[in-house]
């Protein structure tokens, strides 16, 4: 039975121009094998955890179809070892766009996020989301609010984008403690989402230039020049630099080794790093707060607005702490992150507007 992919609150893109269908169990199993083959073990595990988190918020707030059932696999073009084609895996808090074009590699735009930031799974499958509301602890047990701590054996603590969160936290802990660097790295604007989200203008995000024709257009929506972009990588001390490189690895490492190795070595080449900026914007409490288990903080909501960015000649990474949506009444938070490549989004070759065969 055909089903319209409904926009889970994102971009208002409720309709679709492409046909879609609900997979059988066998098809779904085959698709997961395909996805597992396309990603690194970390990238696959990240997807599995994000889908689990999407199910957790659907159990709490069923107003949107944001669960793991509303994930889509799309292939654009014909799979080939020499010509261009793209694999897209997409759901509420995840989009992987992997373009294959012979030897050219592209894994962007890549969006990952999560709500809740972390949750617990008990051995009987019960999910528990824990957080603080007005100094007292609240639990959502299988989506139902209670103030009684659930009993049962903890089978897993799940924090879907922990690799990215902790990497950002490590950078910002060092940068914000380094007074001079912090002053340069701090942006004057405030943020409540990633800025370069692949969505229509009507949502406030900007993707109108992508993919752009590099022969006639420039990536004008990205900041240019040397001011208002944060602190240069080369102005950071050794520890800070290492933390930034680890942060880059946290996003790039979701991809298969042949793809991630090529992109990573380009992003962290000395030439690239000499033009790479690191920036942040503080949240409501006055600091950029990417601390672990944010919803267990005394006033969880004050972390919202915390923003982090890596801005290189090709690389663009954003991470932001937002107010919760499914747990809005609790004044908790959730995360959005974005990885883009200013020259290779949707496949480097396509950005030139040229025919695939000439690349």
């Amino acid at each position, binding site marked *: 039975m055909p089903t319209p992919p409904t926009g889970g609150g994102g*971009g208002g893109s409720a309709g679709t121009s*492409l046909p879609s269908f609900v997979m059988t169990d066998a098809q779904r199993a085959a698709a997961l094998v395909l996805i597992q083959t396309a990603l690194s073990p970390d990238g696959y595990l990240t997807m599995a955890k994000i889908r689990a988190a999407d199910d957790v918020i659907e159990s709490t707030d069923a107003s949107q179809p944001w669960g793991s059932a*509303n994930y889509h696999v799309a292939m654009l073009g014909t799979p080939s070892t020499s010509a261009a084609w793209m694999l897209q895996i*997409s759901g*509420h808090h995840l*989009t992987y766009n992997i373009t294959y074009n012979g030897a050219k590699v592209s894994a962007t735009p890549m969006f990952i996020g999560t709500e809740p930031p972390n949750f617990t799974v008990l051995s009987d499958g019960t999910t528990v989301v824990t957080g603080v509301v007005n100094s007292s602890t609240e639990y959502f047990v299988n989506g139902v609010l209670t103030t009684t701590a659930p009993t049962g054996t903890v089978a897993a603590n799940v924090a879907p984008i922990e690799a990215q969160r902790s990497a950002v936290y490590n950078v910002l802990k060092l940068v914000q403690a380094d007074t001079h660097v912090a002053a340069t790295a701090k942006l004057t604007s405030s943020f*409540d989402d990633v800025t370069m989200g692949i969505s229509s203008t*009507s949502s*406030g995000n900007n993707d109108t230039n992508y993919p752009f024709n590099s022969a006639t257009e420039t990536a004008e929506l990205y900041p240019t020049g040397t001011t208002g972009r944060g602190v240069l990588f080369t102005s950071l001390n050794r520890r800070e630099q290492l933390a930034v490189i680890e942060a880059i690895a946290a996003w790039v490492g979701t991809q298969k080794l042949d793809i991630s190795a090529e992109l990573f070595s380009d992003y962290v080449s000395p030439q690239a790093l000499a033009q790479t900026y690191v920036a942040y914007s503080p949240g409501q409490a006055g600091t950029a707060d990417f601390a672990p288990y944010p919803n267990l903080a005394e006033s969880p909501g004050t972390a919202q607005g915390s923003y982090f960015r890596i801005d290189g000649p090709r690389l663009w990474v954003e991470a932001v702490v937002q*107010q919760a949506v499914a747990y809005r009444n609790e004044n908790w938070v959730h995360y959005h992150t974005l990885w883009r490549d200013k020259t290779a989004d949707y496949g480097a070759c396509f950005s030139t507007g040229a025919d695939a065969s000439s690349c």
Partner: protein
Amino acid sequence: MRFFWICLAALLGATPALSHQMPKSTVLLDFRSTGVDAELQIPVDRLQVALRQDGSGLDAPDGPAMLQAGHTRVVNYLLAHVHASGRDGAAWSTQFLGMDERSIENVSDLVVRLAMRPPPGGAANVLDLRYDAVIRELVTHAALVSVRTDWKGGVRPDSPELVGAIGVHTTHLLVDRSGGSMWRGFRSIFLLGMNHIAEGTDHLLFLLTLLLPAPLIAAGGRWIGPGRPVRSVVQVIRIVTAFTVGHSLTLLLGALELVRVPEAPIEALIAVSILVSAIHALRPLFPGREFLIAAGFGLIHGLSFATVISELGLDRWGMAVGILGFNLGIETMQLVVVLATMPWLVLLATTRAYPAFRITGASFAAVAALGWLTERTTDWVNPVGPVIDALAAHATWLAATLVVLSLGAKALQPRDRAG
């Protein structure tokens, strides 16, 4: 290759289940003959982020305080971030009218009303809007701009038209409404009138129930049989005309706000009017004087129509044309329904099947009326409304059934009993 781009565009446009959006602002524009009234709906917590960043060094006032003591700062901020001009670039005046707080699904919005006026002699139908409230500081914020009222462009508050989005890279929007005309406005409101009857099943049910016994003659407190077709047609015309006169009068008075009656009792009385018609169709209560009932209850129905018009926020000239267009739309739709059903009803009335049909129809109307009446007086929600709406959605089939029924009954009727 071209195909690829089309597919890619489609794919990107269709990217499903993107992450949830943070609250956005809304700008609603009412185009009037003298200028543009704007309503800004700004999420309070987003505005606070912007005010904190704004550089004036003051703490941002919280929700209630925004409306009271601290509001000068809010107003000054907004007036500094909202600018209107005409196509020629001549600046319009922007005046703060008032604001209040509105909460929708736990998202608290500051609702601000502004009056934007062109300089004397300037055209009021092209607005060059420069807007970066909140967006200037909170760069991921956006405002969706809609035209809510544009009489000549055929845009009414019940169906605003999205005209653009304002974000950090596009803080400028030209809203050109110069293509409108009196005719477009008239046509739009005429269609609204037709729709109101087509969808306002209670109005139609009242009229049709009242017309159910129109082809019949009453004697001794019972409906005894059909009158001559000519008499039936005259009866129908009298009833329909009386209903029209009644509701036109109160529509005019109500829309001009010369008469003000709360909506709830009117809606309840409309249900009563259907009940009275239904009882009359079962046992004659006022045979031959249906037109008086039609006129009397028409007054009630007209007050209900008037609420539709008065909610449109029309200016004086628009109101005059609006009442005319809306009423003509109502009459047209009413005429369509009467012409589509009455010939078959008159024909069916000459067959032996009619008493059963009349009793079934009247009983249905009575049940519907009681359902509506309890819902409108006691808030007891019952399935009557949804069931009727579902039936009304198949109006063509209902009409076709009536045709088949009347032709079938006529064909089976013994010759000597016919006519």
